[in-house]
């Protein structure tokens, strides 16, 4: 094993489902994962095989780790928030307790944790809120002020568990249809929240369009912006090159980087957004 590298604690385990509950539009699922829990950091994800033994779905599905709890010798658990969407996620959300799934993790980059207490704004879209609660706990434990804003198309798609609310200083909800919280998109409310709470850093997770909008606002306010991207991934471990997006390096040159190992958490400022279907001019090797 190579020291200092991404995914160096990743292993594959037969993870037992110890709870599977419907929460709004999502399923909150708890897995017994052993040592994986101890190594999981907010922002990491896991990759799960779906469909059972004779599945026609050959690829794993990636899920952001919602929370992880290391219990030492008695093993560890992680929690996921899964939207029943297509074949793989529907299979997973339909599994009874005690089922076992093949789970690989922890994978990918984690949110960077500031060494000093800062004023952080956490922005989640849909199930993108999942990794933010674990992050909020860590930030709070480092003395940060944590404000959170969660958006979704409608009330059922806001994932905000009660316990989670305790770890934030303020929680703003927005919905596209006005069925809960403020009526509108999260990005509509960011400038106000940034100013009112004197935000120093933004953390975000959600649909790519939302991350792009946040990046723009972050740049306008000259704020750091760490976002967890979600690209279509075949392997999740950096070997297939399907999950790439153009990210600028320290030399200012954009490269098609793998979002599974250079991400999912990346510096929003470095991403060339809205590049679906094209390789931006100037990208390395174009």
């Amino acid at each position, binding site marked *: *094993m*190579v020291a200092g*590298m*991404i*995914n*160096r604690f*990743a292993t*594959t385990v037969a993870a037992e489902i110890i709870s599977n509950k419907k929460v709004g539009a999502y399923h909150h699922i708890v897995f017994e994962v052993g040592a994986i829990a101890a190594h999981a950091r907010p922002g990491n994800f896991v990759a799960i*095989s779906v469909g059972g033994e004779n599945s*026609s*779905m*050959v*690829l*794993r599905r990636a899920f952001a780790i919602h929370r992880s709890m290391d219990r030492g010798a008695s093993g560890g658990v992680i929690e996921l928030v899964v939207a029943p969407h297509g074949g793989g996620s529907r299979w997973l959300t339909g599994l009874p307790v005690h089922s076992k799934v*093949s789970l*690989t993790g922890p994978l990918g980059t984690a949110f960077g944790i500031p060494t000093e207490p800062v004023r952080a704004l956490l922005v989640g879209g849909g199930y993108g809120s999942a990794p933010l609660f674990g992050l909020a706990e860590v930030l709070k434990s480092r003395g940060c002020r944590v404000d959170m804003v969660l958006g979704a198309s409608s009330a059922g798609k806001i994932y905000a568990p009660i316990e989670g609310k305790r770890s934030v200083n303020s929680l703003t909800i927005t919905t596209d249809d006005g069925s809960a919280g403020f009526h509108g998109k999260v990005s509509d409310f960011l400038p106000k929240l940034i100013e009112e709470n004197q935000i120093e850093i933004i953390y975000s997770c959600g649909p790519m369009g939302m991350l792009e909008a946040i990046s723009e606002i972050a740049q306008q306010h000259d704020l750091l912006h760490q976002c967890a991207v979600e*690209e*279509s991934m*075949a*392997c*999740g*471990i*950096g*070997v*297939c*090159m*399907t*999950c*790439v*997006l153009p990210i600028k390096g320290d030399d200012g040159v954009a*490269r*098609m980087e793998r979002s599974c*190992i250079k991400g999912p958490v990346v510096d929003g400022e470095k991403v060339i957004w809205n*590049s*679906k*279907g*094209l*390789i931006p001019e100037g*990208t*390395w*090797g*174009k």
Partner: protein
Amino acid sequence: MSFDYSTSLAHASFKNPIFTASGCAGSGKELSQFFPLSDLGAVVTKSIMLKPRSGRATPRMAETPSGMLNSIGLQGPGIDLFLEKDIPWLVDQGADIVVSIAGETVEDYAILSQRLNGVAGISAVEVNISCPNVENRGQVFSCDPVTAHAAISAVKRNLNPALPIIAKLSPDVTDIAAIAEVCVSAGADAFALINTLLGMVIDLNTMRPKLAGKTGGLSGPAIRPVAVRAIYQVRSRIPDAVILGMGGVSNGRDALELVLAGASGISVGTATFGNPRAAMDIKNELESLLVERGFASFSEAVGYVHRDEI
């Protein structure tokens, strides 16, 4: 009981017959988190081209029933960086290495071959001729006997003869054995069978092709029967053909099918995406299956299906 698991591809020997598939193991580093690369027969590197290459736009993949489409477009660092960084790192790991090369022109194949001469740690060269020829309307080299011959000949003329030439063929042809024969006449020592099949998936929301590149390469268990057939056909037509087999191998039983059909080595591609340790699992399972069937060595099983042919 001492089962001999070693194999050889022409004049290159390997400690076991389980390889990675080109383009399915990153630069090796990523996979080495899951098992030591030195436990493989060899790492087959992602097809490398002359220059750095961004590859195709995204989306680059679509899952399909028991398979997937990809259109990576040969993204890679180019031969210079590759030789400077990736190869030394793999050598450090104690991995055996098969370098895969891909060109846009016949000249590219010649230059790439020259660049490999004298590089320490390389056991063989896989020549990916299943890629578009920019001098011929983007037609795939291995889909035309003339260009297939030209590409392999260019390698033959320029590569150190100590390195076996493994011609990697596309199954998207009328007669794959005929292309294989042409490659033999151009100097190929072995074949890699098969590359992906050309396919397309349409996104029902946008009602456009799902991949930015429109078409993509189909891999995974779905194509295994095509791989077994291609290996069988080439081995029937050219009885002493040496074959590195691939296409939908995800467990030891799958691997055994390809071996019996005529493969002296097995590359594991898509299966690694579903199971990072797939190659190791396959290695162990295949060995057990061979021992159970009474084979004393791996090489006894290669092409065993052809035992009744004269």
